[in-house]
Every structure is written in structure tokens, then in C-alpha cells.
């Protein structure tokens, strides 16, 4: 048991993956000597060599496209996209090749590729360094999309993503890289729950709040605040966005009758839209209020001095909870 940050937990998870399977390769920009701009790959090139921890040319399509070829050759590439806003040059290779190759080949050429993307805002960065593009990938059949919210999940889920025979877009909530928690690095993966199930991280009876990645901490803080007014929020960490574990959310909503979905991405066609549509279909008679969504606005991510106004925070979550209760 050691107290580690999420960044260090992911680093440990990558290390284990490299140790346990010599087909695992890391590729990306500045992941070698530098250890990545967030030091998530710190020390890995030194320990596993330049042929397994590969500093790539500055070209995201090239990184993902060569990963496809490496996968065809039997490798398990784990590629790092330096920031959320830089994944788009690789979009064609991801949606056209990575997502579809297993189906196209009737299962003959699997794509066990993990695409790691630090995402989300709240770190005062310049443009393109604070975006939340997860919905683009979740809308794409063939891809799995995960986002851990805490160091332990990050440690376990990154290994589960790499071990998964399907391609996984792994969204790391960069503003939580420095969050600390106890992580048992000797934990046995097999004993861990599937990453494709959501988790109730705080039970409550008044309103269900579903969230993932960076917003889980925000929602837990909101729940603490709400409790002081006697409102008990049931907070669910979705953990994975594709597939979306609607059953866990539905079970909760059948008890609470109310659901608020929270994410940083723009609300319009964001993950909240899908969850709202499905939960309404599954829990039509149980719902006492429409599913309410809290998220980014329909604007480009604003200059950092305005990001606190753009990002969902404790107050906006509580405001939505109030509105849900008022119905």
C-alpha cells in the first residue's frame, strides 16, 4: 500500500503491462527521456529501452497508423496523444481503421490498441489543452471509451485497457493527475471488477448524479454539501462511456426518481444526452423529473481565465439538483 498520485499510478500500471507482456509497446511524442509532458511515462524508456518505449515523429496520424500495423504484427501498442486537442489529426486512422478493422477482417486482425489521452480543463492551459472529445469516440462503434476518476482505478483500468482485445480510448483527467490516494501496486488484476461496470461511489436517496473522470470529485464534493441541507445524492462513477453501464444508473434512478448527468464536454450531443435518452426509456414511470444535464456550453473551450465559468462546479451541480427536486 502506497500513497500515489494518479499520474504515478498510471505510470505504475504501464510498467506492469510492459513487464507482463513483451508485446506491449509505448509510442508517442516526448514519452522517452522526458517521460511525457505530465511525466506519466517517466523512467519507462530507461528501463524498457527505446524499441519498446518509442519517441515518435510529430504526427498523430502516423502514431496511430503505425500502431495499427504493429497490432497486425501481433503487438499491443499503447499510444499517447499529448493533449486532447491534438487527437484530431489521427481521427481518420482511429474511426476508419482502429475501430473497424476487427469487424472488417471478421475477427482475423484484432486491434488491441490503447490510445491514452490526457483530457479536460481546469489547469489554466492555453487553447487545445483542455478539451473533452470523448463523445466523438463513444459514438464510434468498435471503440471502447474509458475514463478513470481516481488513482486506484487509473492504475487498474489502464492495465485492463491494455489487456483488452478491443481498442480502447483511455481518457485521463489531467486536472486529477496530482490527486493522491492509497494504491496497492501488488493488487491482482483478476480480482478487480470489470472496467465496463459503473460504480456507486456514494449512496443516497434523493437524486442520482452520474459522472465520470474529472467530474467525480466535483460531484462527491457537491454531495457532501447537499448532505448538509439533508439532500442525499447518490453519486455514480460511470468509469466507462462505451459501453455505458445504464443498468447501474437505472437501478439507482428507480429508487431516487431523479437523475443529473455531469460532464465537462459540451452538453449538446454529449454523453449526458445518451444517458438521458436511455434512462428515460428504461425508467419512464419512475422518473419524477426529466433527466437534467450539467456540462460545457455550446462554445469552444474559453480562454483559461474564463474556464471556471465554463466548467461544471459544485454550485452548478447543486443548482441542477435543486431544479430536479423542484419538479
Amino acid at each position, binding site marked *: 500500500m502506497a500513497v500515489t498520485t494518479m499520474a504515478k499510478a498510471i505510470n505504475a500500471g504501464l510498467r506492469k503491462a510492459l513487464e507482463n507482456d513483451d508485446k506491449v*509497446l509505448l509510442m508517442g511524442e516526448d514519452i522517452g527521456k522526458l517521460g511525457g509532458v505530465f511525466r506519466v511515462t517517466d523512467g519507462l524508456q530507461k528501463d524498457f529501452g527505446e*524499441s*519498446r518505449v518509442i519517441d*515518435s*515523429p510529430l*504526427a498523430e*496520424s*502516423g502514431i*496511430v*497508423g*503505425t*500502431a*495499427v*500495423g*504493429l*497490432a*497486425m*504484427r*501481433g*503487438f499491443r*501498442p499503447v499510444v499517447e496523444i499529448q493533449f486532447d486537442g491534438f487527437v484530431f*489529426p489521427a481521427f*481518420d*486512422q482511429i474511426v*476508419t*481503421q482502429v475501430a*473497424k478493422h*476487427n*469487424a*472488417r*477482417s*471478421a*475477427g*482475423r*486482425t*484484432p486491434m488491441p490498441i490503447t490510445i491514452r489521452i490526457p483530457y479536460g480543463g481546469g489547469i489554466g492551459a492555453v487553447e487545445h489543452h483542455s478539451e473533452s472529445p470523448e463523445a466523438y469516440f463513444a459514438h464510434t*462503434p*468498435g471503440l*471502447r471509451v474509458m475514463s478513470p476518476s481516481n488513482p486506484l482505478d487509473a492504475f487498474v483500468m489502464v492495465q485492463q485497457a491494455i489487456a*483488452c*482485445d*478491443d481498442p480502447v480510448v483511455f481518457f485521463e483527467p489531467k486536472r486529477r493527475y496530482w490527486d493522491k490516494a492509497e494504491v496497492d501496486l501488488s493488487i491482482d488484476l483478476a480480482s478487480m471488477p470489470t472496467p*465496463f461496470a459503473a460504480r456507486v461511489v456514494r449512496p443516497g436517496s434523493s437524486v442520482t448524479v452520474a459522472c465520470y473522470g474529472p467530474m467525480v470529485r466535483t460531484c462527491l464534493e457537491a454531495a457532501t454539501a447537499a448532505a448538509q441541507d439533508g439532500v442525499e445524492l447518490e453519486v455514480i462513477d460511470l468509469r466507462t462511456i*462505451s*459501453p*455505458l*453501464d*445504464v*443498468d447501474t444508473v437505472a437501478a439507482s434512478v428507480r429508487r431516487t426518481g431523479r437523475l443529473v448527468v455531469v460532464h465537462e464536454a459540451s452538453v449538446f450531443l454529449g454523453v449526458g444526452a445518451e444517458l438521458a435518452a436511455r434512462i428515460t426509456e428504461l425508467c419512464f414511470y419512475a422518473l419524477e423529473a426529466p433527466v437534467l444535464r450539467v456540462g460545457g456550453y455550446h462554445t469552444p473551450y474559453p480562454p483559461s481565465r474564463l474556464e471556471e465559468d465554463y466548467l461544471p462546479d459544485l454550485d452548478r451541480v447543486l443548482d441542477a439538483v435543486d431544479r430536479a427536486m423542484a419538479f
Partner: protein
Amino acid sequence: MTADGGPELIQLLTPEGERVHHPEYDVDLTPDELRGLYRDLVLVRRVDAEATALQRQGELGLWAQLLGQEAAQVGSGRALRPDDFAFPTYREHGVAWTRDVEPLQLLGLFRGVTNGGWDPHERNFALYTIVIGDQCLHAVGYAMGVQRDGGEGAVIAYFGDGATSQGDVNEAFVFAAVYNAPVVFFCQNNQWAISEPLERQTRIPLYKRAAGFGFPGVRVDGNDVLAVLAVTRAALAAAREGQGPTLVEAFTYRMGAHTTSDDPSRYRVAADLEAWKLKDPIERLKVYLARSGWADHDYFAGIEAEAETLAVALREDCRALPDPAPTSMFDHVYREQHALVDAERAEFSAYHASFAGGEH
């Protein structure tokens, strides 16, 4: 740009069927091997013609003809060793033939019964790639894998003249050069990207692109199966020996339409076609074989007959190709359990069962 390929064009067999020599490249083939190449060329052309006919008859939704590019494909395909791996576009039917992919397996995609059709690993021949350029990066990645697992083989990436404008193809050049990957970039410059002439993609010969990335580029007569074989063999050998990538520009011509849905009369003049007919890849080898006394009328007739038999079988097998089961579309989206796909498959089956049950 010179229509005849210019002085840099590597040639071992002239359009008139005359065997010429080149200071750097040569092949030493037995009459048997030469006849084998001739047979490949004829059978591949016949398969292509049959597939075109099958499209006209409504058996295929589309077909991308290779007419005119037989030598570029057979020559490069026969240069490959079993453990080499090839990444085709959608037109490499001749290369597929050299990798022992059944002609019938090529038709599935165009008939719409599959988006793939064969086992890439069984034949060391990747699935056809329709999105222009994507496969060049896959080839480089595969070659990086070969470097890492100590494989013996080299990799070859096929693409067209139009594809050279795509970012992905140029990124493939960058990665291959930087990692010195054992890959051959084989560009079939058939002068056209659908309706756009070469001038819309480049203002200098394409083989020169390689120099800008720091590896050798050569232009070979793409209608000369001997020259293509020689040049591709050398490039593959260099790759295997750790000398990294080579760009081979096979200078050829798309004798047919881009695909069966295309109408070239809208954008190119018949005269060009006539000029290129004189450089036909099959005719020149036939003349050479005959003149050298290595093949006679009976031999040629025998090949024609074999081609005819192949075509008849292909036609019948194509018509017999069954449609896939509707639920198969859910089968390989994911390898591991995925709740949404499972639910949709169940709904789908229940919905269709309801018709069977006559509910609707």
C-alpha cells in the same frame, strides 16, 4: 512531364518485346519462369475482365479494374518472398493472385457480402484499403514490428499517384525513414486519380519524392514485368538487409475506367489510350517468348483455355456466393462482451422473429 517516362525509366523489355539491358538492374529467368509470368499476366487480366462482366450483369456492385497494370502487379508480387507482407489498395488483384488469394475472395467486397474477404495472415496480404493512403502507415508499423520481433521478411505498401498527396502517405515516408523500416513503397503511377491527371498531384516525377525524405526512389517501366520484378526484388533485398525504405514508381497507365461506375470519356482523350495500347504489358512478353522460341502457338492457346476455364468457374462461384446472415453484422464489432451490441442483436432477432410470427 514526359509521357514516355523519360530517360530515368528502368526497362528490361521494350514495348516491341526486345530484351534490353540496364547497368544496375537485371533478372536471369529460365524459360519456365518467363512462361510462368506470362501465364500470371494472362490469367490476372482474364479474372479482371470477368469481374468487370459480372458487375455489368449485376452480380457485383462495383469493380476496380487493373487493366493495363498487370505487369506492375505481377512483377512486384512475384518479387515477394513468402514471409514478406503486402498492403494493397483496392486494385491489387494481380498482387493478390501472386499471394494465392483466391480470385473469388476478391469479389466478396465488391459484391457486398463482406468488407474483407480473406485471412491477411494466411496469405501475408492485408485486406483491401479503400480510404486512400491509410495502408501506407500500416505497412510502416508492420515493418517496425518486423524490426522488433526479429522477422526475416520485408513489407511492401501499394498506393497510387493520387495517394501521394495524402498526409498519411507522407507521414509514412517520415516514419519509415526515421526508423529505417524494412518497407518498399510501391506507387503505381497509372497517370490518373479518377478524373484528375498526374499534374493535379505533382509537378515533378513521383519517384523523386523519396529524395526529399532521405531514401532512394526509382522509376520503372510499370508495363515491363521483368524490370518491375528486378527493381522490386532489389528494393526488398535492401529492406531485408537493413538499408531501409525505397520508393518504386511503376510508370504505367489505367487502360480502363477508374471503376465500373466511372466514365473516362468525360475527361480523357482516346488518343492516349491508343498510345498506351502499344505498350501493352502482355503483348511485349508474348513477342519475346515467341521470338526466343520459348513458347509457341499451342502454348499460348493452352493459357487462353486455362484462362477461360478459370473465368467460367469464377462466374459460377460468384453467382453462388451467399449473402451473409443478417445478425453477422453484430458479430465482430467487439471481441469482448459489449452490452449495447448484445442488446441490439437481441432486439434485432426478436424484431425479425415477430415478422416470422406474422405479428406485422
